[in-house]
């Protein structure tokens, strides 16, 4: 009787150890952070990765420390002009591990931009595949930045109050980004209130 029981336990122990050993022997695929194609597709299909230049302008003005801008254009373009505080990761070097420090932030929003938004979006897709989180694309790129933020168009008389508010904010932001001026501070203070609203709107879009 006792013999039989100890044999049962012996067999069960061997089975358990065997199960664990099979795990060791199993062929391992690359099990790093990389996400599978079907998941990547879902992320690609999600428009929550796009942020407006207004949103970035506001965070730059407020000197938000949780913002990391990444310029994916060439080194040459980067050296001529870029946004304040941006680091340069040329698109064709996007997958290089040396950029991990700039892209891998738990507590920062990393925003990619190019002249338009196509290259930035391609860079985003590659970084999304590599499993990076909190990465966004600046919608419209520098083109829209120049158009909306630096040379805003005055809305027509019939435009809604909101449109005017956005316009005044952009006007103030234009002054801020074009160069130092003493009027900036007073001009920006009221628009900050308006921007809080903007931020909410953006997060609501992401929630959909």
């Amino acid at each position, binding site marked *: *009787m006792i013999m039989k*029981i100890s044999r*049962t*336990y012996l067999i*069960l122990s061997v*089975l*358990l150890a065997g*199960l664990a050993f099979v795990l060791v022997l199993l062929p391992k695929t690359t099990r790093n952070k*990389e996400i*599978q*194609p*079907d998941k*990547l*597709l*879902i992320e*690609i*299909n999600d*428009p*929550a990765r*796009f942020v407006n230049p207004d949103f970035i302008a506001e965070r730059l003005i407020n000197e938000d420390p949780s913002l990391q801008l990444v310029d994916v254009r060439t080194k*040459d*373009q980067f050296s*001529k*002009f870029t946004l304040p505080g941006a680091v340069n990761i040329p*698109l*064709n*070097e*996007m*997958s*290089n591990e040396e950029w991990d420090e700039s892209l891998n932030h738990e507590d920062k929003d990393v925003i990619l931009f*190019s*002249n*338009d*938004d*196509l*290259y930035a*979006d*391609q860079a985003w*897709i*590659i970084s999304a*595949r*590599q499993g990076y989180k909190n990465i966004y694309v600046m*919608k*419209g*790129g*520098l*083109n*829209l930045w*120049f*158009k909306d933020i*630096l*040379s805003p168009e005055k809305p027509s008389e019939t435009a809604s109050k909101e449109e005017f508010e956005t316009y005044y904010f952009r006007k103030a932001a234009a002054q801020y980004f*074009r*160069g130092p001026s003493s009027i900036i501070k007073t001009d920006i203070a009221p628009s900050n209130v308006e921007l809080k609203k903007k931020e909410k709107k953006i997060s609501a*879009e992401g929630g*959909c």
Partner: protein
Amino acid sequence: MAEVYKTKRLKIASAIFIALIVIGFLTFHKPLYKYTLTPEQALVGLSLPESTIGSVEIREIINSEKKNAVLVDVRNVQDYASGHINGAINIPLIDILNEQNYSHLRDLDQDQVNIIIYGKDHLQANGAFMLLKQLGFKNMKFIASEFDIISKMNNDGLKELQLLENMFMDDSIINQFVNPTSKKDSTTEDPPEKITPVKKAKKNSSEGGC
């Protein structure tokens, strides 16, 4: 204490555990889709002339008798139904990895048929393009423009975007924005006009967003 020496239930429980794992392996099939390009490889050949196609060429493809290309519309079914380019097939972006759609595309690619992707804007087409590229598709291009422009086919969306992505190379353009004094230059009027499609694209996608 007698139960301690009873191993019947233990055997059953262990058998269930092992059966669970064995069933898992029996039903386990390798994922259909695997990246064949590493991220480094995927970043090669992304320049616009290599990866995109303009509307002049598209017109040629549509009009030519001997078709060696397929237009793929990756917008959703409703958008496709309300108007699409003649001869384009509809595979909504979100369904692009469905077994049927995917194997169809795969067959086309292996038969050396050129796959040309377009979407509601350059970004949607780009999304499909980038995904398939990483999965190893070779004979594939996308139209980097929005559908409204593509459908007219008299405006070369490619050239426009190329222009946009190559802006700000020039000191004079940068200066006129960064330096307020040159604002009244006559050339200032030029860039905003060119940017028009981008503005539209923005409207479009924010509608699609929610």
